[in-house]
Structures are given as structure tokens and as C-alpha cells.
């Protein structure tokens, strides 16, 4: 379960201070699929960063299970991200010199495990996203949809309970976007992973179980699917 309580985040831009989040509170049940919506600058990306432990809030608390991640140091936050979170980015962010399987193995690299074991773990998730025939290809040799699948495989390789996706279909055509969305829905339904997607895409909101809308750093709407 994710419990967010009264979190505030301020960015200093020169002499001006921008309040990105103004005391947001809500909870997300395990296995939920949430669409985080709002206009650009509404604070959804900041919220995703804070839940994922990429940034720290000025005040408030974020509990992931029993752990308050807003008080963790950099090292413990890194461990938290490695064990509990999988990130999927809009622009895929794959390492261009590494092959598909090497990109997927990347999160496992700092972990002590046998090379074969690391490879097998990576291949399992590559197979899950349907790219087992392209394991040796470089990202540049793949289509946008395939690259995003690799990014999803990379997010899954550590078997995280929570997947945070930032505009995962933003750089894809609608057909490919749909396939990626189907993959995320499958992961949520079959594997009971908690998925939070920051998006502008209404199609995602339609398939998500819950839609949270932010506006100017404040939560303005929180609707469950049955009520959508």
C-alpha cells in the first residue's frame, strides 16, 4: 500500500519559488492501476518522482508498505528503487551501446549474482514482453514500440511491486501505444503489480482502475473506475 500524506514540494528557480505540490494526500492499494492526470506543470511528474524515491519532499510523508521513504538517505533510497520500483519513461532511455538483453540486465548489474543467472532472469522478462527473438539487437535497430517493451522489461527485471510510468505511450503511434497499454494492463491484472501512470492520454484513464487529477499542485479529483 502507498500512503501519501500532505506532501509539499517546492522548486527554486532562480529567485522565484515554484510550489509544485501543495499538500497532496491519498492512498493507493496494492495491485491498483492508477492514471495520474493533469495539464503540464500540474505536479504529476513531481509526484511520480517522490513516490519513486527520485526526489525528496519538503514536508509530508510517503509510506510504501511500512517504510517512510521520505526519511531515507541516498543509499537506502537507491536500494528502495532497486527492490521496489520499476520505472518506464516516455523516451525509453535505453543505453544505445548495449543490446536488448544487456539493457534489461542493467538493474541487476550491481547485485551479486552469477552471470548466467542474471542472463536467465533478463531473458524471462524479455520473453514476457515478446522480444525474445531480438535479445541481441541494439536499441537503434528496434521500433519505438519495441524499445518501450525493452524499457518495460528493464522495469520488471527486479520483480518490483510498483511500476511507475511517465507518459509510456507519449512517443508512440496510437496502435503501438495500445499494445504497450495492453502489456501494462496484463502486468497489473495477472501479476497484481501496482501501476501508476502519469499521462495525458484518455485511453489510459479509461483502462485504469482509478483516475487522480492534479491541478496546480493540488489534487482536484480522485475517481474509481466504476464511478468513471
Amino acid at each position, binding site marked *: 500500500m502507498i500512503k501519501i500524506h500532505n506532501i509539499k514540494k517546492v522548486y527554486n528557480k532562480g529567485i522565484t519559488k515554484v510550489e509544485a505540490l501543495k499538500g497532496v494526500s491519498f492512498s493507493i492499494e496494492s495491485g491498483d492501476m492508477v492514471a495520474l492526470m493533469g495539464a503540464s506543470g500540474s505536479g504529476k511528474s513531481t509526484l511520480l518522482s517522490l513516490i519513486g524515491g527520485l526526489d525528496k519532499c519538503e514536508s509530508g510523508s510517503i509510506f510504501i508498505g511500512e517504510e517512510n521513504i521520505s526519511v531515507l538517505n541516498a543509499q537506502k533510497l537507491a536500494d528502495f528503487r532497486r527492490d521496489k*520500483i520499476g520505472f518506464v519513461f516516455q523516451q525509453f532511455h535505453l543505453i544505445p*551501446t548495449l543490446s536488448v538483453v544487456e539493457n534489461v540486465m542493467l538493474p541487476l548489474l550491481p547485485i551479486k549474482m552469477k552471470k548466467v543467472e542474471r542472463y536467465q532472469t533478463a531473458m524471462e522478462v524479455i520473453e514476457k514482453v515478446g522480444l525474445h527473438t531480438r535479445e541481441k539487437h541494439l536499441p537503434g535497430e528496434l521500433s519505438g514500440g519495441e524499445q518501450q517493451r525493452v524499457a518495460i522489461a*528493464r522495469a520488471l527485471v527486479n520483480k518490483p511491486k510498483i511500476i511507475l510510468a511517465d507518459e509510456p505511450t507519449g512517443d508512440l503511434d496510437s496502435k503501438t501505444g495500445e499494445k504497450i497499454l495492453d502489456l501494462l494492463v496484463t502486468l497489473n491484472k495477472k501479476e497484481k503489480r501496482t501501476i501508476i501512470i502519469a499521462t495525458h492520454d484518455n485511453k489510459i484513464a479509461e483502462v485504469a482502475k482509478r483516475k487522480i487529477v492534479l491541478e496546480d499542485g493540488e489534487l482536484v479529483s480522485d475517481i474509481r473506475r466504476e464511478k468513471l
Partner: protein
Amino acid sequence: MFFEYALKEITRRRSRALLAILGVMFSIALLVGVLAVSQSVEQAALQPMKSAGADMIVQLHGEPCAFNTVKLPTNLNPMRASAFKNLGTNGEVSAIAGVLEFLSFKDGHPSIITGVDPNITNIGPIKPTEKKGECCEIVEGRYLQNTDIYAAVVDKEFAIVKGLNVGSKIDIGEKDFEVVGIINSGRTARIAGAQVFVPINTAKQIVNKGDIFTTVFIKLSSKSDPKAIEEKIRTATGNNVTITTSADFLATVAGMSAMTKNMTAGISLIVIVLVALFVIKSSLAAVYERKNEIGIMKAIGWRDMDVAKLITIENVIQSLIGGIIGCFIGYIITYLYAMKARLAIPQAIASYPACSASTLATDLTVNVVFSPFLILIGMLVAVVLGLLAGYAGAKRISSLLPSEALRQL
């Protein structure tokens, strides 16, 4: 996989990697070059003392004596042999040999003669040997014996110029000497080296100045105090004697090189510091360029030290490549220097006339001394440069917030 990943990153960022490699290569080449040259020069400068098997050379320098058919070399005056009789009686000297160098004129041309003790072959101007290619190989005939009187061993080159063979006669001080052997003393400078070697007692008779030496070779025992020995020699011979030790020899022969060495060592140190700053800057720039990528690594759970490890491995690989090429270039520089270098035995020790029939070598051969220790130093400096760059990169990495690096998120 860290290593494979680092290698791929180096290949991807070829220009930056090449620049870093060149920087390290340049500094290591300079460092290894300077140290290898000075080592080689030192070896060359110490060669005459080493081949004489001596730690000390005692001579008495003074005004040249009047012209005669037989005379002492230009600036060497006689020293009484009796002054050295008690030296080493209490074990402070492990070997001692007095020799008498003189010039013998025939038809206006001088020949350089050295009277040596036939019984002493472990210290002195020549150490006769049967071994091929070694100094001083007896290429024909035999070496001097205790019973010889008017017998001579001649240098190979002198024998060729004068057309001498074993059994030939040679006029020294109006006496006929029989050539009993021909030796190859090589073309490197030797202390009290000569064209003809004769028994010292015969030499003393011909020079006719009594029981004298012109040069005395002394090998100290391990427990002896060189200063005390010097004092003892000065007391016995008078204060005017010149005592040359290995250290003096080095200072005289390679004095200029030592100064240049210090200067160049200083410059190479500055270059290393500049290169260190350069590789640090290069590493910081590489981290900045890869800000986004580092953000990804951090986002997927890499700790700061994991990213730093990767950056350090990359820097160390680059430095090692630069170091290996640098060591190689350093030795090429040394080899080129050795080919061109001209070091000569000090004039005070080799007072040979310029107009003799065959010239004696005064040049010292500079051979490149290959030292694994020096390579180790070069590689160590290269690795330190790589680690420094890695450390600087790591500091920058830890100050990077993943969210800052990933503005898109």
C-alpha cells in the same frame, strides 16, 4: 559486465576517450623517458669504475713533465708506491692495484703504455678473459705472466694499425718488447686504458723514476668507511692527490645530465599535474554529458558508488592504454637519446695524447637500461591518474539528484 559496459562506453565516446588516452600517454612517455634516460646515463657514467672493479681511483695531478722519449701522461705526476703499502692491512680494502701509465715516443708519435701487475686481474684497467665478446678478451696469444720482463700485450686496434701479431717486436723506451698477446678492450672508455700493457716492474725501469704509480685502483671492503680511507691516503701520499669515487665520477661525467634530469623531471611532474587536471576535467565533462544516462542508472537502483565504479573503470582503462603506449614511447625516446648521446670519460682521468697512432676510446657507451620497476612506476602513475579522474567523476555523480538528471520524469 561492468568491464564490458565500460569498454563499450569508451568505444562510443571515441574522441573524448582518445583525448584522455593521449594526455596520459604524453605524461607517462615524458616521465618514463626522463627516468630511463637518467638511468641509462648513470649506468654509462659508472661503467669505467665498474669495469675497473674499483670504488676509488687515486692520482696525483700536476704540471706535465719535460719532454723525453718516455714521459708520464700530460697531467699525471708520480706517486710513491710505498705510500700504499700499508693500506688495507686491517681489512678495510678488499683489493688494490697500482699502475704506471706513460707515453713512449717513436718517430714523434706517442704510444700509450700502462704497466700492470700480471698477478692482479680482478681490479685495474683490464681484466683479461678467455670469454668471447667480453672485455678484455685475449683474442690471440696470452696475458702477461709474473716472469715476463720485456713482454707486451697490445690492444687489438693498435695491433691492426701497427701491423703487430703475437711474436712481433715493439720499441718502448728504446727497448724491444715481444708481443705475447692481443686483447680486445672494446671501444668504450677505460680508466688507465692503454694501447700496450707491460709488466709494471719493467715499466718502472723504463720510466726510471723509482717505485712509483700514476693511478691506484682501490676496492673497499663492505665494512670500510670511505672517508677514513681517503684520509689515510692523503696522510700517506700528501694532500695533493686526487681521489675519485664512483659518486664523483657520476657527478663529473653525468653532471650536466643530472642537472638536465632534475629540470626535466620537474617539467614532467608539472606535465603530470596538468594532465591530472585535464583527465579530471575530462571525466567531469563525461559525467555531465551522461547526466541523463546516470539519472537512468540511479532510477533503476544503482547506488552512487555503482555508477562511480563504472566511471572509474572507464578512466582506469583509458589511463592504462595511455600508460602502456606512454611507456613504449618513453623507451623509444631513451633509445633515440642513447643513439645520439655523447658522454666522455673525464679529461683528468684519461689524459691521452691526441696524436697517437691509434686513438683510445674516451666515449662512454650509453646503453638503454630496461627497468621493469620503471614500467611499474609508469603504469602506477597512469592508474593513479585514472583513479583521480574516477574519484572526481564519483564526487560529481553523488551530487546529481536522479530527478534533476531526468527532467522528463
